[in-house]
């Protein structure tokens, strides 16, 4: 993008306060004023635009989770005479789920390294392992839910259980959607190689998968660990 030729000097900015630096537009140092995507540098590159946009989407998703968390926090004691967390939680399953998700986050990061190295084989292997651990997480969680429903402690038993199933289930839904996306990405990388737009999408997937683990940290702390105390 070339700029228009303007034979005139930089006009004085009438809104500049004082004679000092215009701190709002200069960022942390002079160099960054003229960097793209900052202050006066012009439009950012697609990689930054896509990454930043997806980052904001993740933050909005976290706000949505926070509403479910708030509901759960309020309804944690509303067991309506039914079972509470202490009666229900299967500890080994929760430990295993946490471990699986953390490992899958790690392997996802390894796939990012493999992608930077443009290594098709290791990227696919790392992504596959990520997907398998994610699937394992879902299987364990599904079994827990089924067991609770069998016991008569399904989401329709009490408000506490409704909020539990909702917040944990929402996370599981995100993991499921993530796995579908992962499968699609693996196919795309295989067929189209490391094209610029495929790379951007892989970055987005990485962000998504790590964010899911961050949410799980909050989830198992608040819902399971703290909830156990009730």
């Amino acid at each position, binding site marked *: 993008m070339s700029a228009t030729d303007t034979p005139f000097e930089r006009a004085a900015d009438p809104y500049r306060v004082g004679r000092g630096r215009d701190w709002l537009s200069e960022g942390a140092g002079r160099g960054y004023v003229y960097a793209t995507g900052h202050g006066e540098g012009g439009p950012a590159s697609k990689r930054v635009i896509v990454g930043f946009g997806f980052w904001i989407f993740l933050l909005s998703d976290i706000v949505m989770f926070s509403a479910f968390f708030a509901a759960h926090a309020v309804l944690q004691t509303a067991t309506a005479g039914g079972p509470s967390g202490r009666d229900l939680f299967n500890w080994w399953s929760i430990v295993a789920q946490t471990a699986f998700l953390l490992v899958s986050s*790690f392997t996802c990061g390894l796939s990012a390294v493999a992608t930077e190295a443009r290594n098709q084989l290791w990227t696919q292997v790392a992504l596959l392992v990520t997907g398998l651990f994610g699937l394992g997480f879902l299987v364990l969680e599904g079994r827990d839910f089924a067991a609770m429903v069998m016991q008569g402690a399904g989401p329709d038993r009490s408000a506490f259980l409704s909020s539990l199933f909702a917040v944990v289930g929402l996370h599981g839904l995100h993991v499921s959607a993530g796995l579908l996306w992962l499968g699609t990405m693996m196919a795309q990388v295989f067929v189209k190689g490391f094209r610029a737009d495929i790379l951007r999408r892989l970055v987005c997937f990485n962000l998504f998968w790590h964010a899911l683990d961050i949410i799980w*940290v909050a989830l198992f702390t608040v819902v399971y660990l703290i909830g156990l105390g009730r």
Partner: protein
Amino acid sequence: MSHETHRRDPGDVGPGFMDAAEVTIREGIARYVIGFVLACVLTAASFYVLNTSLIWGPGIPVALIVLAIAQMGVHLVFFLHINTAPDNTNNIMALAFGVLIVALVIAGSLWIMDHLNQNMAPMHQMMQMQR
């Protein structure tokens, strides 16, 4: 729109972006390994805190929350490569914004709902009133 090959900006960075020109494969893997180990330690610590009497009972939720925040920080720094460099400012600002909103939603809701619950008649009385 900008024509796209693999252009990197000199002064701007998206989140989760690893600048391979500066980081070798070994260093990249090392970052993730360190993050993974730290996360494991913090997770184990959470479960440990719950099951022992190391922490005074009423303080356990606080300890758990501190550990959780620490682990989220580990994820952000080691897995998502969020740092405080000037080219990351927008990403940090966005994160701070998100954290603020989450805090307002949760804290505000808890504060209001707690007050409402205190002032609401007990459930069995309300059910009787509805007969």
